[in-house]
Structure formats: C-alpha cells, structure tokens
C-alpha cells in the first residue's frame, strides 16, 4: 500500500509491479505525492473562555462535548434500566413502580440508549474527534455549523429530559412510538410527554444534519495529500457510511414526527383511523397506522446500522493495532461496510412481519434481510482472521474487542432467526427480540465504545487509563451482560411478550421467575461495574501514567500530530503527507513492526510492502 499516487497512473497491474519493487526506484519518484489541491483552511481561533470552551468551533472540543452529553444520557438510561429490572425481577417490592412509570421508563430507556447515547456518541463524539485527525485535516470543513450542531443536540437532550418533569410525565409509548396508542389516553405521557419527545427528536435530526454534512464533506473533500479513500482507517469508513445512512434515514423520522405532531395537535388523521374510545368515536377517520410503522422503520432499521457500522469500523482498527497485524482483507471490509449500508435501506419491514402489512412483503424482506448476513459474516471472518497469526496483546482494549466479537456473532445469529420470516412469527414481540438487540446493540457496540475509550484516552488526555481497573471493568461487564441476555432468549421461547410490566400467573411465565431475578441481579452488578470505569476515568485524568507519543505504536495519523494531545489546527506548521494505508504492521524487512502512514517509502527501503 505504499505506491505513489501518481496522477498519471495507468494500469493496476503496473502499479503492483512498481510498488513491490519499491526499493529499486529513484528517490524522488518513490516519495512522490501530488501537489496540494486545497489551500490551507481558515480557522477561527477562540479568544475568550466562551469561544474556547463553550461555543467552541474546534471539532475536538465539540467531540468531547458530545461525548460527555451522550454519556450523561447513557447514565440516565442505565438508571432507568435498573428500575425496570427491579420491577421485572422483584415485582411488588417497589410500590412506586406502577405500570405507568414502568412504560415511561422502557420508552425513555430505549430512545435514550439508541439515539441519544449511541448515535450521538459514535458520530458526534468519535466522529468529531477522529475524522479531522484521521484524514489529516485541520478541522471540520464548516466549524461554525459543527458548533451549532452540538448545541442543537444539547437542546434536544434538555427537551427530552424536561419531559420527566411535565404533567403526565414522559411518553410511555415504547421507543417505537406507534400511533394511535402513542397519542391517545391510555398511554402514559400522551399529552406533553409525546410532544416533547417528538420535538426533541426533530431537534436532534436538524442538529445532526448540520454535523453530518460536516463529517461527510470533511471525509470526501478535505483529506490530506496521499490520503485516498482506500487508505483511510476503517474507523473513518464506518463513521462515514453511518453518517450517510443517517442523512438519508433521519428524514423519515423527521417526517413521521411532524405528521404525528399534527395528528396530536391539529387533529389531522394521517395515522389515525376511526377510533372508539369509551364508547365514543373520536373525530379521526381514514388514516393508516401501518404507514407510521413503515416510515419509522425506514428510519429505524438504518438507525440500528448507524450504531453498528462505526462500531465495526473502530473495532477493526483496535483489533489490527493490538494484534500487531494488518487488517485482513481491507478491501472486502470497505465493501462490506458500504454494502451493509446500502442494503439497510431495503430491509426495514422485517420489523413488521406480524404488523398486518401486506403479507407478500414477507418474501421480499426476508430475502433482503438474510442477504445482509453475507457481508456481515465477511466482516466477522476478517476480524478473526486478523487475530490469526497475529501477535496479540491481551490488554483491556483487546479484551473488549474479543467481547465484541463473541456478543456480536451471538446477537447477529439471533438476528438471522428473526429475519427469517416464518421463524419471526412465534418470536416477534417476545423477549427473544429483546435479547437479540441487547446482545447486538446493547452490548456489542458498548464493548467497542469502552475499548475505544481505553484506546484513545491517551490521545485525548495524554495519560493512560489504569489497566487493572480496566480488566475488572471488562470482566464484570462482559460476563455480567452476557449472563443477562443469553438466558433472556429462552424467556422468548417460552413466549413471554416484551413490554410486560408483570407476568401475572400464566403457568409458563411464572416458571421464569427465578431467571428474572437472576437477570435483575446481574443487571445491577453490571450497571454498578460502570462506576469502576467512571472512577478509572476520573482517577487517570490526573494520576494516570503519562502516555507519551503513540503509546500503542499505531500507524494512523491521529497519533502522529506534533503535539499530544493535539491542539487546535491539529498539525502545527504543515499538514502531514500520507504514503501508505494505516495497517502496515509486521511488514517483512522493516525495522519496526509498524510503519506509520506518514513514513515515505524511501525511509523503509527494505520493507516488502504489498499493495492491497
């Protein structure tokens, strides 16, 4: 991957021969990078405290702002899940947990975790921090819009949280917000709660669009010299594709929010057919509840990949760095990410097999859904093939990666169960689904987030996190979470429906009381274990081992800034020039077992790099 990007390059096979004999070529030619197409970026340097830290236009600061806000919502979501588990494991023990509050907690838990924690953290947090650094830009291309983006998100979070304090409380309609139920009495929070939720989501979408345009354009149009798309770290590919998905999928959410708001406020009948409430017909007529479901899942399914793809990308990089081996089948990985992204727009109705939509759709959507398994499977294979014949450092980061692989494969395969339309019929809307998506979305990407934080914390703060605490954190989280969700599948087999406040006395459901208690206890432990992590963060911030430059001996650009942690503008005097992909680990003939992306071929003459 160290060929020159000569503008006049002709045929592919020619390049191959050229680069494999790189050592034999003239100096100037080897290190050739073409001239800069872009002038230096204009940066806005803040001068006061406010412009430096609050309304800051530096993507790195914005990334941290996003991360902190998202983690705050995550903690709220975690506490809500604790309360849910209290009720499910030990009903009657907590009289303040009524059915109303329970459903409000389920809803807020789901929405917060999916949208306000994972989406914001991966794209807003990691995206902002890493994109400019990894592609070699000084900042995002529109720093001002980027700053607005965060504040929109912040307002969205404030609006969301404020719904806890309005009369009627937050909405309890389930995170899928299905009408008619979501806006009718009989559902908690059907007054202000649902409105605030819809407003908050709309704000989120608008704010995200501003950020998302930044991420996309920065990646497409502001890469540094030598940084071709096929040399970008997979992290960037994952975030990029996810952002594109978000830009195209969020519109459906925005539109359905607007329409539902109108149904609620103006009494239009988009989603509302004739409804009899308390013996009286409401004024609605002729609307289509299933339309909402289509719109929601046209957003919702891409959404789950929006949280999965960045995780795929990041974990690829982490695995590669910590097993000191190039990522296996980079090209295939890129195509798989893009392919999964594209396909995800054609599978949405697999959430609706038993929704009463046209039954013929089942064939189409089952087929498209299972097709997604193929590119996803390739990614899994390539992760483990990267470990194979590697030189694996079993540190906290790697542990989280391994935990990710195991839980993701497990959850993905249960996804295949559900995608196969006939199998979904008995399992849909049971705890099997809950188990599926917690495995694949609740744990797997969280594992990546934790791994990524252990990995990049030294970059952000200049200090390493404590390994010992990290290992404790990993083992409790991984084993605990696995023992929450693995048994949960079997609840679904029994037939326990999801969103049940209480199991009552159905014989086959009461047989699971013991399991529910066990799950709850495990959930408390896992939740508590996160405080080890928070303690670790706070402690290491001040007392952690100084990391120095590039503590992991990584290749990608973010570690190669002149200052660590990087300062505003990232690159000091001159933008870096990239000569190779980010995965030249263990290259035969090279002195070190890693060759940073900026190293020109002339400096590693004897390395037998292959073009990939």
């Amino acid at each position, binding site marked *: 991957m160290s060929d020159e990007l000569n503008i006049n390059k002709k045929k592919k096979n020619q390049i191959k021969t050229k680069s494999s004999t790189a050592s034999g070529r003239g100096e100037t030619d080897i290190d050739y990078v073409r001239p800069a197409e872009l002038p230096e970026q204009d940066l806005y340097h803040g001068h006061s405290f406010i412009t430096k830290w609050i309304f800051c236009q530096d993507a790195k600061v914005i990334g941290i702002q996003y991360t902190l806000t998202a983690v705050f919502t995550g903690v709220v979501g975690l506490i809500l899940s604790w309360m849910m588990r209290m009720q499910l494991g030990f009903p009657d023990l907590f009289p303040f947990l009524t059915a109303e509050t329970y459903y409000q907690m389920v809803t807020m838990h789901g929405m917060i975790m999916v949208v306000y924690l994972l989406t914001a953290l991966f794209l807003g947090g990691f995206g902002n921090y890493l994109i400019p650094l990894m592609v070699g830009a000084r900042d995002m291309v529109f720093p001002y819009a980027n700053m607005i983006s965060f504040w929109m998100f912040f307002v969205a979070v404030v609006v969301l949280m404020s719904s806890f304090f309005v009369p009627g409380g937050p909405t309890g309609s389930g995170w899928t917000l299905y009408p008619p139920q979501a806006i009718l009495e009989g559902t908690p929070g059907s007054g202000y709660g649902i409105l605030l939720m819809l407003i908050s989501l709309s704000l989120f979408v608008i704010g995200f669009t501003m950020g998302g345009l930044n991420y996309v354009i920065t990646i497409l149009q502001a890469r540094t010299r030598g940084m071709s798309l096929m040399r970008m770290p997979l992290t960037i590919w994952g975030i990029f594709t996810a952002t594109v998905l978000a830009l195209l999928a969020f519109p459906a959410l925005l539109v359905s929010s607007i329409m539902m708001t109108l149904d609620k406020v103006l009494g239009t009948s988009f989603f509302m057919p004739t409804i009899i409430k308390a013996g009286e017909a409401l004024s609605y007529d002729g609307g*289509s509840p299933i339309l909402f479901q289509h719109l929601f899942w046209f957003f919702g399914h891409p959404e789950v990949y929006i949280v999965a793809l960045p995780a795929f990308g990041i974990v690829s990089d982490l695995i590669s760095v910590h097993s000191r081996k190039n990522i296996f089948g980079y090209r295939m990985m890129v195509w798989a990410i893009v392919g999964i992204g594209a396909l995800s727009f054609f599978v949405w109705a697999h959430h609706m097999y038993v929704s009463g939509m046209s039954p013929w759709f089942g064939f189409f959507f089952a087929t498209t859904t299972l097709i997604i398994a193929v590119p996803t499977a390739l990614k899994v294979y390539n992760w483990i093939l990267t470990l194979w014949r590697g030189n694996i450092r079993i540190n906290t980061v790697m542990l989280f990666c391994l935990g990710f692989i195991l839980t993701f494969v497990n959850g993905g395969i249960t996804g295949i169960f559900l995608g196969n339309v006939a199998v979904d019929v008995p399992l849909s809307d049971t705890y099997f689904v809950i188990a599926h998506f917690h495995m694949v979305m609740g744990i797997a990407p969280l594992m990546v987030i934790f791994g990524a934080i252990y990995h990049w914390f030294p970059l952000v703060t200049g200090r390493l996190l404590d390994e010992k605490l990290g290992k404790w954190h990993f083992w409790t989280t991984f084993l605990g979470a696995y023992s929450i969700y693995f048994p949960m599948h079997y609840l679904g087999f029994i037939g326990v429906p999801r969103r049940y406040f209480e199991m009552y006395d159905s014989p086959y459901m009461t047989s699971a009381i013991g399991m529910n208690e066990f799950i709850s206890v495990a959930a408390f432990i896992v939740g508590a274990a996160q405080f080890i992590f928070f303690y670790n963060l706070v402690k290491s911030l001040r007392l952690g081992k100084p990391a120095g430059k590039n503590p992991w001996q990584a290749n990608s650009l973010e570690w190669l800034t002149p200052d660590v942690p990087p300062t505003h503008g990232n690159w000091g005097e001159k933008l870096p020039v990239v000569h190779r992909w980010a995965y030249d680990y263990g290259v035969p003939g090279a002195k070190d077992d890693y060759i940073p992306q900026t190293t020109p071929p002339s400096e590693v003459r004897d390395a037998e790099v292959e073009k990939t």
Partner: protein
Amino acid sequence: MTEAKKEQTSTHKIGIYLWIWGLLFVLSFFSYMVDWYNFQGLLRWSLILFFMFLKAGLIMAFFMHLFWERYALVNVLLWPMTAIACFVSLMMAEGKYTVFSRLFYFFVGGA
C-alpha cells in the same frame, strides 16, 4: 477555500439556459394540458410521469449543472434514489392492499 481561481469552471453560453427555460415552459404547459383534456387511466399517468421526469431531468442537468459535473458527484446523488423508488413502489402496493381489505370487510362510513 479563499483565493478561488474560477478560471477552470467554464461558463456556458447564455443560449443554453434560455433554451432550457423555454423547454420547461413548454413541458409545464403540456402537463397542464393533460389535466385540461382530462386524459384518464394509463395514458394520464404515463404522460404525467413522463413530463415530470423530463422537467426534473432538465432542471437537474442544466440549471443545477449536473450535466457538466463529474460522474463521481452525479452517481453519488442518483444512486440513493433507488431506495426511494423501492419505498414508493412498496407503499403503493401497501396502499392497494389496505384499500382492498377495507372495502372487503368494512362498509363505508367505517374504516
């Protein structure tokens, strides 16, 4: 982004804009005529869609300069439309299915 050297973005003769402009008027007029003459059925739909796509194509290609843009941009913009096409066609099927079951099981005033 500052010192823009605009020389390479070749400008186009004014004639082409005027042509397209005129064509758009004519096409709009035609699609208006579809309604005026009250064509029905398949003919109506093919005409409406034909004029619609033609107009949209002209605006995108010439007014928005897509015709002169490089394929990288053009393809990035057009491929996502397949998702929309899929969505539209499936929703039409769904709408038909709904109306069928409504008429079959309900009587009007119901639904």
